[in-house]
């Protein structure tokens, strides 16, 4: 692990699930900083540094984006599409983290170049393990090509 702070952007509209993900990641000290937005529009504002996120200090480039699909205002798939279309953002791994396991959603996400698709497990132990593995895989094991070039 590098000495730089690892940043995760969590896009999740359900406050309970937000709390769960944050607890899960924090307990394993996987990320120094987790930024949370609760709808698609806010996610866009954060990533493209608009509105209240215009100040780069407030919106550091994330090392990982955890994205829910069904979001208020702007749909998760739309956010994903924009990320992958953007020259600056497309290298950031986007992990879909959602309750839906519909084929349409899975295909839609991969069709828009999602890096991974995870379905929130209903079982608590599995949920905990998923958070565990998620952090390790993407932030420890995974080599990131962008750290020096973005931000």
């Amino acid at each position, binding site marked *: 692990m590098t000495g730089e702070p690892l940043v995760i952007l969590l896009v999740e*509209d359900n*406050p309970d699930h937000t709390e769960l993900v944050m607890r899960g990641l924090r307990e394993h000290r996987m990320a120094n900083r987790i930024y949370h937005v609760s*709808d698609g529009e806010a996610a866009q504002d954060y990533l493209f540094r608009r509105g209240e996120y215009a100040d780069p200090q407030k919106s550091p480039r994330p090392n990982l984006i955890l994205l829910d699909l069904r979001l208020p*205002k702007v749909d998760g798939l739309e956010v994903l599409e924009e990320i992958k279309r953007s020259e600056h953002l497309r290298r950031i791994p986007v992990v879909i983290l959602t309750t839906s396991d519909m084929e349409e959603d899975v295909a839609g996400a991969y069709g828009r170049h999602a890096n991974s698709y995870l379905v929130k497990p209903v079982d608590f132990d599995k949920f905990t393990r998923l958070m565990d593995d998620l952090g390790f895989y993407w932030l420890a094991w995974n080599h990131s090509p962008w750290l020096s070039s973005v931000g």
Partner: protein
Amino acid sequence: MRANRLLLLGCLLAMVALAPFALWAFLAAASDWRWESEAPHSAIEAMGSMAAICVSIVLLHRKREPGGETFFLLGMGFLGMGLLDGLHAVVPPGQRFVFFRSAANVVGGLGFALVWLPQLGKYLSTREPVVWVVGGVCALCGICAILFPEAVPEMVRNGEFAAAAVTMNVLAGVLFLAGGLRLGLGFYRTGRRELWLFSCIAVLFSLSGFAFRGSSLWDAEWWLWHVLRLGAYALVAWYLADRYRQVERELRDLAKFPSENPHPVLRAAADGTVVYANSAAGLLLRVLGCGVDDVLPAGWRKANAGAVRTGTERKMSVEQDGRTISFSGIPVRKAGYVNWHGRDVTEKRQATAERKRLIAELEAKNAELERFAYTISHDLKSPLITIQAFVGQLEQGVQRNDRQRVRADVARIRAAAEKMQQLLDELLELSRIGRVVRPPEAFPLADVAREAVDLLAGVIGQRGVRVEIVAELPVVFADRRGSLMVVQNLVENAVKFMGDQAEPQVEIGARPERDEDSRAVCYVRDNGMGIDRHYQQRIFQIFDQLDRQSDGTGMGLAMVRRIVEVQGGRVWVESEGHGHGCTFCFTLATKAEQDSPAKLQTQEMGP
């Protein structure tokens, strides 16, 4: 019927049986009588020849009818006999004179006798050249006999008929009798009167052949058998007249066929002139603005010409008194006209349109169902995950003895469980709206608006919202309870999304003008947060909430839409965007006879 046939046959047989006695009596009375006159004889023979050739043409044309081979064979016999008799009529009395007559008799008798062989008749009747061969051979024999008189066998010797002549005529008599017998049997079997007629003709020819035997030129018996033949030709004339009447009647009946057709039929010449129109096409011609002998309008003329040119079918259609008549123009190129056959396709068109509408409706329903399944899988799983996960967290919290966290997690679990229950309740309610349609009734919208405001008095007061009900609201004809739910939901929605409006206001009203279905356009207007154009469609979808922070399940507007659409109305939102307030509009029927609500009534199917 049978008795009648037997009677007619009996007459025939009696004729044959009595003939020798009649002959004997006749000869006894007029044995010395002689009349040597060429002119009447030639006239009789010429008339006979003409009649034979005429009837042969008619009979040969009947060869394709069922049983036509009989007529074909008779026709062949008449043809040969007619040709040779013609020659007989023009040559002066002598060897050839008698030869032609005898040969004619043999050929004719052969034609009649061959009716015993219908298979042969069938075979010959399908061979076109047979007629020309027989006619040609007869004509050739005649020409040869005229050119080479010495080749003709001896027919007369010392003023008496020679053996050859007598033999030929008696043979002919036998042949005719045989044919007559067969024709008589055919009449007995089938009851066809014309067979009886030809049987009579055959018997007369046969008797004349037998009578030849004892006759000599110009004597009484000689004239007798000529009279018998004349009688036979009289019957032939009768047959021709009868046949003409029958054909004319058939033609007339057939000609009535298109005029009795209840569907319009037109016939147009290649240049587009209407040459025939049945009575059912009268209305069409009025619509097209032309009559029989007039030229069709330009579009039709073009299609007509195209059909003639290409030889393929063309289609046209006409709207007439709200009905659609489709015409197909079938060209008959050889005759150079087009037959236009009309068919009323109104019902078919309506059925097609109805089918399309139903398919679209079904597809929409299917899509809605899919979305429903999707949202259920997502939105019902969400609180379940929360409950499960926080129960796990709770265990950890208890182990660590972190009381504060335990309390917070229990609150989350309870909230999630409550949310789930609320979701399930509303899902049930939503499905009930689709299943149960209450009969519509007439009521003043103002009453429902007041009721809704009373029901919401709590939240309205709590948020300090001023709700105004416009004075002039229409009397609508709709599901009253459903309408109350619509107004209540919309007002509640307006109150909930007031944002930071200092003077929150809600107005319930109706637009003065009606929509295209002449339904009343009612509205609930607020000066709250407003909705971006981008989201104005999405908000009516089930569970779709623009703001997750707000309470509620996101089912209110879905329910509103369902209630309004089930009654055949529409619902939409108008907003200038964020911060400009918004107006929710929905339409309700105002009169009883105004279609859907009454028709949509169904039985209540469940609780």
